[in-house]
């Protein structure tokens, strides 16, 4: 995919060139008082699930804009972000100034439970409504959920272009795909659960699809790394519900990976940022959020970090604008709102898992 080649070049460029040498989008429009207060705080602690290497260009650029605010960037997995935050908040020992996690439901849960500070970011005017929940939680990226396949074992023209095609492919070539399909395990992975419930919501043929997955004995993993590694090696041929961002990054290193954007419906997830009330540097948190949502920040999010821009006014490969243009109404962004909390109810969750396992035929 050329999009990814470009991103790779930009990524390499970003690592080599000083941040100021790049053409950048408009700077964040943070109120001068907040900037001054943030600079006085002088520090910012981010807890994030985004890898440090991926987030590197963002942090670097932010740093060049606001050299007085030192960024302490911690990457960990989404459970750890949550565990650490709630423990630290309870201990009253301060915590992150900004939580930036791919676990959308846990972020909204924290916001709903009153952990998040409300902030009317001046950048919100260019952010779609589904990505802003009451000024408490904000979608910051735009990451389509795609199919990934091994090009050595599955030709590009064979690769499914929609969920319906996927189901059909598995039904018709059951033996070929026996044990060769992979996805997140909704039972063991929060992200996996989120995605599969969205599938269930959006796809009227979900039960048939699940049955097809079950019939080929889909292999369910807890980590994206394990999934991509096994598709690369050919142990698995095809994977679904995979973040395009991770797949694209991997594809840059290994051309044997193929990526397919399903055309019938394209789920899009977004990394959610919240500003915890217990943060010790609230203004620095606001400053970083504004930056993250600004045109300048989103340019880097899309073109260097490869996470996709959520803004209405950032264009080019890997942006909401481009994706919407290509896929139209098939695009189904997962909204940042209370609907995410539906399955955090223990009984509802177990009930869904039961349905899923029944459909798979493992129960």
């Amino acid at each position, binding site marked *: 995919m050329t999009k990814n080649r470009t991103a790779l070049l930009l990524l390499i460029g970003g690592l080599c060139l000083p941040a100021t040498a790049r053409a950048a989008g408009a700077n964040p429009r943070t109120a001068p008082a907040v900037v001054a207060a943030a600079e006085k705080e002088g520090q910012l602690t981010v807890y994030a699930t985004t890898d440090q290497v991926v987030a590197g260009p963002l942090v670097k650029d932010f740093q060049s804009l606001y050299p007085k605010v030192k960024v302490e960037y911690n990457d960990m997995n989404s459970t750890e972000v949550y565990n650490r935050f709630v423990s630290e908040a309870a201990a009253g020992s301060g915590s992150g100034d900004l939580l930036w996690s791919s676990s959308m439901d846990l972020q909204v849960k924290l916001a709903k439970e009153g952990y998040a500070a409300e902030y009317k970011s001046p950048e919100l005017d260019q952010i779609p409504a589904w990505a802003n929940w009451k000024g408490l939680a904000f979608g910051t990226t735009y990451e389509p959920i795609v199919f990934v396949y091994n090009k050595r074992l599955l030709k590009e023209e064979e690769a499914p272009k929609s969920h319906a095609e996927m189901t059909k492919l598995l039904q018709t070539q059951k033996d070929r795909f026996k044990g060769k399909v992979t996805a997140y395990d909704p039972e063991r992975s929060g992200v996996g659960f989120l995605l599969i419930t969205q599938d269930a919501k959006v796809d009227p043929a979900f039960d048939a699809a699940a049955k097809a997955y079950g019939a080929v004995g889909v292999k369910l993993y807890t980590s994206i790394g394990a999934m991509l590694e096994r598709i690369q090696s050919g142990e698995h041929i095809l994977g679904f519900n995979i973040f395009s961002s991770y797949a694209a*990054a991997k594809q840059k290193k290994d051309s044997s990976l193929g990526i397919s954007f399903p055309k019938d419906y394209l789920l899009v997830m977004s990394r959610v940022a919240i500003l915890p009330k217990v943060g010790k540097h609230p203004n620095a948190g606001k400053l970083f959020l504004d930056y993250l949502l600004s045109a300048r920040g989103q340019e880097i999010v899309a073109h260097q970090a490869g996470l996709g821009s959520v803004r209405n006014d950032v264009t080019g490969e890997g942006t909401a604008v481009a994706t919407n243009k290509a896929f139209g109404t098939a695009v189904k962004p997962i909204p940042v709102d209370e609907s995410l909390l539906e399955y955090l109810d223990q009984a509802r969750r177990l009930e869904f898992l039961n349905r899923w396992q029944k459909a798979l035929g493992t129960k």
Partner: protein
Amino acid sequence: MARRIPWARLSVVLVSAVAIALPLVIVIYQAFLDAPFFQPSAKLSLSAFRFVFADEDFHRAVWTNLILAFGMTAIAVPVGSAMAFLMVRTDLPGRSWLEPVIVIPVFVSPMVLGFGYIVAMGPVGFLTLWWQQHLGPIPWDIYSLKSLVVLAGLTHVPMVYLYTSSALRSLASDLEEAALTAGAGTARVALTISLPMVWPAILSSGVLTLFLGFELFGLPLVLGDPQGLLVLPTYLFKLTNKLGVPSYQLMAVVAVVIIAIAFPLVWLQRKLMGATSRFVSVKGKGQASRPLPLGRWRWPATGLMVLWFIPTIAVPLAGVFLRSVVSSWGEGVNLTEVLTLDHFKELFEYPNVVRGIVNTIVLAVVGGGIAVACYAAIGLAAHRWQSRWAKVLDYLVMVPRGMPGLIAGLAFLWVFLFVKPLAPLRPTLFSLWLAYSVVWLAYGMRMVSAALLQVGPELEEAAASAGASSGRIIRDVTLPLVRFGLVGAWLLIFCIFAREYSTGVYLLGPGTEVIGSLIVSLWGSGALDVVAALSVVNILLVAVGMGVALRLGVRLHG
């Protein structure tokens, strides 16, 4: 003396008790609540127990875990004790360089081993492909429970080996020679004299292996993932997400279950170790032991060693090394075309990885040294102390064995959060150091007390009657005599700290990154090529440590 209060000793007991009990108490307390302990709404309740005990996955995990634990014990004990006999009591060729090789699995992270197995023996692993090309269908499925049992068994052979070999070493060779002259062959001597004499040691290593089977995390996590194989520690991991929100009380219940299984086993093992000293009447008193001739068994015996070595060490390590230098692998990939050193270069793009490598070295070298000093202090406190406090201390140091590293790590996070005086130390390496030192306390104490036991009591009594106080005795006699043992313990703890992975996950942060925890975290985010390169760095680091240890003539056995 009898009536003087031994303050120094008592304070050591107190400090270790606090360090050990704090995380444990938090975990147990949490198990009996219905919400995270720090939430004001948390109430005492058995609901967490009810949920876990009613969960089908829990039943499955217990059952699988039983099969795994007993299965791996059934493999590790006979192989380990046979190898111990061959290494210690016979003229097996190449014994001197084999010993460090045998203990390698102890010092390599099981995550790394598991990853290596997938690259080598997975459905499209290089060994699998080669086999399919030349020998036909592969007879193994690396993800099956059977494979897990076999691999766990083989990688735990060193545990049995370490215990049995040190017992065999203290066996006087005249006992065997008596049997030899009576007309018994070497194999018969082994089966009727040597091994029965060290039976309690073998049994106790068996109990230890059984117990380790219940806290096995890395291998089942990596190899059991695709089949959804669950054992207790991975079930615990699964609980993190099962309800969408991390449910500490459920995790704590599983930890309590593991501790409840582990504790009686630990106790049993202590009893058996006690029996060993009674059984082995001859104390290694400078008696040179002469190796038994293997004769025509020489080559079959060598064969056994090789047979163990290839699947346990050569294959997984080759897998990891290979993965670290290719950009792609598997079916249809010509490995010579994808060779690259990029993954190693990429390591240095991650600022936290570079810090992690430095931190690991600091933690392993300096932290390992301080940890051994603490273990030695505890060992000396209990040394020749006729008091029930010594017994208490004896059991106390075994307690942390019962806590899986992951839980211990989380518990220590809580300790550093909620024990206010400790809070400023959390973002420093001290937090990791304390967690590591407590988690590996039992292991370290075993090495330290083994060294202390080698000091004849009369050497210390001689100093006492010459007029030396207890402090002087320790300084002038005991410590100089155990210094090699302590240096040895330091190097082994270095290797262990360098490979430890699960304990540090929750304490990971800027300034506290270590290789092991980074591997776990990178594993999740998909950078497996970086994981492979980092694993190689980790293995080389441990190898350097081992090399230095052997250079200095450290004996790997107690």
